[in-house]
């Protein structure tokens, strides 16, 4: 099993959800996060006082999928989240040791 974690532009969340739904991925966890990579933030000015704001709002989308589906999900995710401009975000993929459905202790891929 793989955990796929994508940090995306907030306004791309709906498109990403649609794209994942289209390939049959139903489960995900979404968190509002703030951060920055190479994209620099912006400047704000309040009564002449300048502030560099470099932590920008992003969405973190996480899901765990069977190994066999991971490439398909990554490709759907990156296509949907892409604008081609700096700040589009990143996708990280992790190995997952185990998955347990709390309701009935089901384990492994069938718990996904």
């Amino acid at each position, binding site marked *: 099993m793989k955990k796929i974690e994508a940090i995306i532009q907030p306004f791309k969340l709906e498109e990403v959800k649609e794209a994942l739904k289209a390939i049959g991925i139903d489960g995900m966890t979404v968190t509002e996060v703030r951060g920055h990579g190479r994209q620099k933030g912006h400047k*704000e*000015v*309040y*009564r*002449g*006082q300048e*502030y560099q*704001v470099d932590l920008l709002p992003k969405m973190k989308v996480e899901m765990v999928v069977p190994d066999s589906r991971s490439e398909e999900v990554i490709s759907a995710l990156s296509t949907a989240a892409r604008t081609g401009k700096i700040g589009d975000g990143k996708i990280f993929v992790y190995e997952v040791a185990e998955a347990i459905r709390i309701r009935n202790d089901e384990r492994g891929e069938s718990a996904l």
Partner: protein
Amino acid sequence: MKKILSASSLTTLGAISLLAQAPPAAPPTVADLVPKIAAAQSAGDNAWMLASCALVLLMTGPGLALFYGGLVRKKNVLGTMMQSFILMVIATIMWALFGYSLSFGDGNAFVGDMRFALMNGVGMEPNTDYAATIPHLTWMAFQMMFAIITPALITGAFAERMKFSAMVLFTILWSLLIYYPMAHMVWGKGGMLNAFLGGTVPCLDFAGGTVVHITSGVSALICAVVMGKRLGYPKESMRPHSLVLSFIGACLLWFGWFGFNAGSALAANGLASSAFVATHFGAAAAALGWILAEWFQHGKPSILGGISGCVAGLVAITPASGFVKPMPALIIGFAAGIVCYFAVVKVKAMFGYDDSLDAFGIHGIGGTLGAILTGVFATKEVNALKDAAGNAINTGWVDGNSGQVVNQLIGVAISWGIAIVGSFVILKIVDVVVGLRVTSEQETMGLDLSMHGEEGYNLEA
């Protein structure tokens, strides 16, 4: 700043009463009608003045509380609002017990006496020295709202770092030693700066350029300097947490200011309309001035700039509102927008004091500019100074009385002097008695939790 019912309105009212009460029997005599006319006049004036009282209270809560509350970080929003609100409580009670009397009891040239203490002699009958057509109670209440908002304005300077107990003690002493004497000198009967009731240096201040804005704004500067900077200033981000709140607050200030200035006519008359228009023109022109200055300097016109400018304009037009015509009001406002912008953006940065919410830059500088320009643009066509025989004389520089500018400067200098010395002494006393600042842990935690044990935004609740 006071006007009594005019002869023309008497005649008009008389004529209306005559028509309305077409007699079945003998026509009423003039003697019958006089008290009825006076009652009608009083009803109209009192209705407007009670509304004005409420408008001025609205400026403190929620107006100023929202304006300042939005400008601080979110951990201090309640602490900041509380500093305005507690003055609606404390300044009111002080006013009831002795504040009104010390401000408007006859006393001497500097401070009132205790004749009106505990509201003694303050009833439904007018006090003809101050406002002949409204109950003494209404006049007292109107002045009370000014005594509430003035110390509340100072709280912008020490926002986010003053102990609540210190703030309460400071504002009590400040009202006693600075506000009551200043109100008496400028507006009280026999006060040395009173232009209409026997002052030796007639200083024109229609609604509080010296009494309210210079005293509070200059005291704010002293507070900022004596208390020192907020932890992390200016390196850490201290962005306003909600300009939405500040926007609502500033617009409520603009709205309430019609009571502040037009209400200072103390009657529902032409002078009130004149002050109303001057107030509005001043606010709009100042907002434009600040926005343009910022647009040129930083490339973007900001909403914070717009609302800061409108408040600066309202401050500057306050002393002038009952003396100037509409076009000078635009000039005073526009000048205030530009000058206060530079005071806030450039002067503060140059000297490095942490006047957190710019109480000095806006009220101190705006009030000073307004007080001086009042001497320039005041005209007898709006509201005349009188000679000993009661004849209208040249009032401001535009009338040819350039000496009025000097009188204004004297008023400004006295206000600055009292504010600087008084505030410094009071801060030292408060520091010894309870300590001025919260601890650094409390400051980091925020005033909401450390002083009041609550939070402004419990979004997960």
